[in-house]
């Protein structure tokens, strides 16, 4: 059967592509372009005119200590999230593979926080962290310890947010890693166990390399999540505070845009964020892309 030519196929494909591509063009590409253009202006969003300022917004951003503070905080969130979430997910995935019938039960349970609205999660954890009536401080007090202001100081708040974030997302990454593990044939493990009895050795030399791709996917999602997904959770729980202690880049951008009305400036933050994001993702992919492991 003769293959239709590339052009003919394209003609046939077009009607099917138009709806999705229209959305894409109108509400994704155009805003992206607008963001870049807007970043060259100074505008408060309400005035009829905007002043062209060229690259001065970018210069201001790069000189802003608040911006760099956000970068550091975002970095801390990313690094800790990567370490915490990936290790928890890998360990749990390993444990669950041998858990037999109960495996489904545990897995369903771990996934639940993902399904809850992050507003509900945010408020729930605010309640948990509440120094007066909260769950954690209640426990602490009953053992005779002082209550800790979990969200009260910048350092504590960041740690608490990381705890909450891990609680929400670990289930998802666990499921992901389990899917990756399921793709590894069993005989490999049998062969490995013939060589050594230590499970840990097997884990590091057999499992991990083979899970490279799923770990990569998790890593990318964690990194991109810290730029976008976490904005809602952080805003609900701390609004970036106290004292900008949890002001990740996304929140910083939001505050500049909608609280300080510096739309041009905020757009340049957005553009810089996109650049950072692309660098991070490329970096991570490069890190993981040494020779493909074949079996």
């Amino acid at each position, binding site marked *: 059967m003769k293959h239709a030519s590339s052009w003919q196929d394209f003609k046939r*494909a077009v009607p099917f592509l138009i*709806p999705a591509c229209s959305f894409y063009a109108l*509400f994704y590409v155009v805003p992206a372009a607008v963001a870049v253009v807007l970043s060259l202006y100074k505008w408060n969003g309400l005035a009829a005119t905007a002043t062209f300022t060229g690259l001065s917004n970018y210069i201001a951003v790069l000189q802003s200590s608040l911006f760099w503070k956000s970068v550091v905080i975002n970095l801390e969130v990313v690094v800790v999230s990567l370490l915490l979430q990936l290790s928890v997910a890998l360990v749990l995935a390993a444990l669950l593979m041998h858990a037999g019938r109960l495996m489904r039960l545990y897995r369903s349970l771990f996934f*639940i926080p993902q399904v809850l*609205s*992050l507003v*509900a999660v945010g408020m729930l954890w605010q309640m948990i962290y509440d120094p007066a009536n909260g769950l954690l401080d209640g426990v602490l007090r009953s053992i005779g310890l002082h209550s800790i202001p979990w969200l009260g100081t910048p350092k504590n708040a960041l740690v608490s947010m990381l705890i909450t974030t891990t609680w929400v997302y670990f289930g998802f990454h666990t499921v992901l890693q389990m899917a990756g593990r399921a793709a590894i044939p069993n005989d490999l493990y049998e062969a490995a166990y013939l060589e050594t009895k230590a499970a840990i050795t097997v884990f590091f030399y057999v499992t991990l390399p083979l899970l490279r791709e799923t770990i990569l996917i998790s890593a990318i999602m964690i990194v991109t999540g810290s730029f976008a997904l976490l904005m809602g959770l952080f805003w609900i729980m701390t609004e970036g505070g106290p004292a900008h202690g949890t002001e990740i880049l996304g929140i910083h951008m939001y505050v500049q*845009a909608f609280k300080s009305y510096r739309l041009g400036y905020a757009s340049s933050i957005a553009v810089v964020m996109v650049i950072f994001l692309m660098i991070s993702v490329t970096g991570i992919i490069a890190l993981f892309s040494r020779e493909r492991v074949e079996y």
Partner: protein
Amino acid sequence: MINPRLEKSLQALARYFLLSMVAIVTAYPIWWLLTVSLKTREDYVAHPFSVPTHVVIDNFAGILVDGILLRFFLNSVIVTAVSVIIVALISTMAGYAIARFQFRGRNVLLLAFLLTNMIPVTMLIIPLFLILRWMHLLGGYTSLVISYVTFTMGLAVFLTRGFFRTVPQAFVDAGRLDGCSELQLFVRIMLPMAKAGVIVVSILNVITIWNEYFIALILVQDQSFYTIPLGLTVFRGKYDTDWPRLASALFLSSLPTLAMYFVFKEKIVAGLSRGLGK
């Protein structure tokens, strides 16, 4: 040298212990939320983390009677339903085209759609807000639906394309021989085969869109159009120190997605595993 049987049992014990610890950490906050919502305010202040002395359903009753939750619930239902349906339609069409037609640049297109997952619409929220305002679409459901469709279609296209790729060419050829038009081919043959995939993607989208907060926060100013996540912040303001009442609002608003999850959880996990596990 330990008896191997004993060693295995100990391993199993350790394994279940660890898993159960994690399970408790996962589940307890939710259980605590429920117990708080069943307490009176005084009871809560006095004993925050024990079982309620009298189980009280006033909080739940109060919320339901209050009525705004219903409005928020309806808004969420409308926005979610419309968005999910639109995404299902356009992403199956696009996924089909990318999967089954050979044209130059189709991989680039796929990557372009995936890009929306890496640089989510949330980062473009400022210009999106401005564009929607300029188009006078800000009030009401339209702006949310548009944003959510754009937000979720990237992954949906990727996943449906994966599903369409598995349809055997024989079916397509048979259809063409029978003289089907392109549209008939799509609707009569392709769609039914990819039904499972579309359902999984849609369920995921329902959960994502229903729970979405940040975009809604920026785009919806009119309280009567608030979705549930936004509505909850209204509750937080309203019942500022009445934690039990807030807790009951949180619990009630989580029930729909929890219910959806429990009904479809196997499908969700299986779909995710298949779609992402390569």
